[in-house]
């Protein structure tokens, strides 16, 4: 029987030496047991003594006696205290060690599974719970942990599936936009549209959420479904034609069907790369712009911006696909009324987006 002796030292030869070694070994064993029992006592004494308990178990383990059951219990008990202290990583490792010393230690499996669950290590939690239940099939605590781990696993799988489907959808839409030579730039009016995005119908045609902004008062109308083949005239009829609700702020009744005109700002933003368009399509938080698009780029090669009038007979597609039309997030069109003072200011370049 070998003690922990430094390399190169001689094996004991004389009877006397052997007797001494036996005595030391017996001391170690009784110390180990004492430390373990002290640890147990400290745990019972409550929260304030948990760290003392840990110390005791550590010392018990440190005796390195050859009793595997004893070592397993020490590790398992230390795991228990670590769990109580919230040291989940350490608890998990202790449980693993406890199992190494004794593969039948049900408590170790339970504590390991609990720690793994807290650490969100779902495969490990499932594994430990399963192994523990093999030994003790009726163990309700283990079953509970196992069920919890399974539930989280299913939820994670479902989320992964949802995320990858959303990514596919976004990639498809981006490809469709590219095919239509429609450019998207960084969004500016997200807060007005509740994070809505364009969508593809079952015929692979695109529908857009569109904003009509009354520049004079910065009051906007949100059009939920502007089909890419709809004409602007059709939507103007709905918003300003007979039977449409009156605009409360339009006290002088200037914004009538005959007088409203639509404009977009050409080159309003820098076109995003496909990768960034996909990312923007996946965003669903209102107002959160993704941060790593270089802001410096906006200042370089700034193309000339001007107000471009929209022919109300045109389809949305024909306007969006123009090379000078960069959609800043979702399509925004500014509404002015002909013959108003504001309109003059607007058209002469005296007004800009606040």
């Amino acid at each position, binding site marked *: 029987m070998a003690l922990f002796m430094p390399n190169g030292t001689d094996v004991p030869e004389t009877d006397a030496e052997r007797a001494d070694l036996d005595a030391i070994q017996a001391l170690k064993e009784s110390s180990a047991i004492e430390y373990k029992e002290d640890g147990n006592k400290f745990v019972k004494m409550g929260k304030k003594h948990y760290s003392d308990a840990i110390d005791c178990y550590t010392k018990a383990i440190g005796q390195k006696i050859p009793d595997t059951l004893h070592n397993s219990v020490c590790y398992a008990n230390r795991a228990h205290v670590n769990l109580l202290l919230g040291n989940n990583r350490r608890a998990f490792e202790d449980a693993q060690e406890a199992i190494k010393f004794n593969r039948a230690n049900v408590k170790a499996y339970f504590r390991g599974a609990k720690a793994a669950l807290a650490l969100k290590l779902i495969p490990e939690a499932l594994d430990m719970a399963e192994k523990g239940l093999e030994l003790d099939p009726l163990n309700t605590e283990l079953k509970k942990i196992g069920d919890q781990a399974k539930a989280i696993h299913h939820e994670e799988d479902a989320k992964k599936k949802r995320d990858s489907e959303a990514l596919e959808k976004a990639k498809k839409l981006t490809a*469709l936009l590219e*095919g*239509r030579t429609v450019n998207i730039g960084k969004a500016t009016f997200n807060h007005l549209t509740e994070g809505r995005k364009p969508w593809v*119908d079952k*015929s*692979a*045609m695109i529908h857009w959420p569109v904003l009509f902004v009354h520049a004079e008062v910065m009051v906007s109308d949100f059009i939920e479904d502007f*089909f890419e*083949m*709809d*004409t602007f*005239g*059709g939507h103007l*009829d*709905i918003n300003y*034609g*007979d*039977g449409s609700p009156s605009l409360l702020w339009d006290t002088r009744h200037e914004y009538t069907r005959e007088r409203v005109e639509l404009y977009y700002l050409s080159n309003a933003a820098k076109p995003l790369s496909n990768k960034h368009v996909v990312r923007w399509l996946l965003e669903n938080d209102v107002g959160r712009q993704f941060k790593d698009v270089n802001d410096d780029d906006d200042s370089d090669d700034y193309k000339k911006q001007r107000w471009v009038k929209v*022919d109300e*007979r*045109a*389809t949305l*597609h*024909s306007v969006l696909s123009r090379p000078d039309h960069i959609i800043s997030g979702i399509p925004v069109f500014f509404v002015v009324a002909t013959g108003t003072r504001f309109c003059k200011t607007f058209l002469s370049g005296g007004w800009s987006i606040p």
Partner: protein
Amino acid sequence: MAVDKDLEDLAFFLKSPSPNLRKAAVEIVQGLSGTDEGVRRLSSHASALFSPLVRILVEAEEVSKPAAEALVNLSQDVAVVDHSIRVGAVERAMELIGKPGSKLNKFMVMLLVNISNIDKGASRLLQEGDEKLAGLNIAKLVRFFSRFSSSEVAGDDEYEHVANILVNITRLEFGRKVVLDMSKGILRQILPQIDSRSVVRRQGVAGTVRNCCFDAETYLPSLLLASEFLWPALLLPLAGTKVYSELDTAKMPLELATPLSQEDRELETDPKVRVEACEAIYLLLLQEGGRRAFWAINGPRILELGYEEEEDPKVMEAFERVGALLVGGSGTDEEAVQA
């Protein structure tokens, strides 16, 4: 099968090293091919006659032209077409089409019309199954078709009958796929031909679009994104001759509003073109997106006024079928506008 010694001799002489003999043989074949009886007789020896005739196509005009004419006549027989596909007639014709100085373009196109009349021929012409080359023949033919139109060329419209080829190939699903492939832009090239002076061209465009619309469910974007050309091509032939009021044209895109506001419009005289335009619209209206787009441009108004002037019974029937669709389920815009 009775042995036709004369034809065997002819086949022999077609391969003769003597140009005079070849010329004589070709002219005999050409003469024979001009009658139905002659074609029937010749087709029994198709395998012997066809390949030598094809080989003669690369020779001087005085032999190649009658050979080409003979081939076109022969290819009216289905058995001959079958044989011709096997000996590479499609590929040979495509090689010869568009060659500078060639006088055979018209014949080669007509040969392809006859060959593409049967599915096997159409498929071969489409290069279906060839991943790399699929549709390239058609793209080439359409390029020539659009570049040299009846209005430009004073003399012979060599590529007129590509219109028939297009109708033939779009009877196949793969043909519709090729024509509607947005990256090839074939649809946009052929749609303006609806204005052509040649009735063959106009019938071809209308027939091709009508065939393509059978796949409107799958290829709606290919059709609607070409709206700028598609609606004028389908609606102007049906719009009648009256001048449209401003109220009517206010909702229409310029490509419709402008011509419809003009006096002395030329009516589409051919009823077949009008029927096919109606049928194409019908197929588009079966799709919700098609209906919505049609209402947006005030399409129903055009059909309404066109129907009033229509007198041909078959065309009227076609109008009525479309009308039934429009009355049954209208686009969302219509309800809003009426409100």
